[in-house]
């Protein structure tokens, strides 16, 4: 596609449920990033995929969070047993990778845990 696409745009879920957030990167981009932004805060790094390398998971806040990237393209961020503190906007970005090219962000998924 022309840009990074994320779905859904908004998600309301009950505490304790699992959620899946999807990111379609720009075609040809080998690097994919997930960030989280709580209300009024900066961007918190979650996970980074680069090609076939092992992902950098150093930002995942707990073992309830996981992400995968199938076929080097689409990525899914899964949050298990959601908690109210998981409420935030989840942002995905992609780039050509190698850490020295321009990254572009999707519009984000606003997650609300009630």
């Amino acid at each position, binding site marked *: 596609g022309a840009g990074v696409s994320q779905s859904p745009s908004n998600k309301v879920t009950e505490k304790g449920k699992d959620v899946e957030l999807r990111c379609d990167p720009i075609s040809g981009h080998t*690097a994919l*990033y997930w*960030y989280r*932004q709580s209300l009024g805060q*900066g*961007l918190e*790094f979650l996970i*980074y995929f*680069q090609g076939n390398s092992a992902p*950098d998971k150093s*930002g995942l806040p707990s073992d309830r969070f996981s992400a995968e990237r199938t076929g080097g393209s689409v990525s899914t961020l899964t949050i298990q047993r959601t908690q109210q503190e998981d409420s935030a*906007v989840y*942002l995905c*970005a992609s780039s050509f*990778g*190698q*850490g*020295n*090219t*321009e*990254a*572009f*962000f999707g*519009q*984000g998924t*606003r997650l609300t845990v009630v």
Partner: protein
Amino acid sequence: GIQVEQSPPDLILQEGANSTLRCNFSDSVNNLQWFHQNPWGQLINLFYIPSGTKQNGRLSATTVATERYSLLYISSSQTTDSGVYFCAVCRYNQGGKLIFGQGTELSVKP
């Protein structure tokens, strides 16, 4: 890891005024980007500028890599410039992920 500091944290301008936003980083980097987050939350790419100077309309940016800082200049500000400006850097041999500063929140009053 690399630390990124942005200043000022907040800025209020009258429409038509000029401003300079600063981004300091603690180590050499391969990539530096400036983003504008609009009131709807969308992150808009402004500049990809690991070094040198670039201009795009009323906005320009300069990165002095040897001194580890970057500046974003906004001239003749407009109300639509309001939002949060983020600087982000990465260093390939430290994994390549983008590391963000905390942002500068700009409010332009009519």
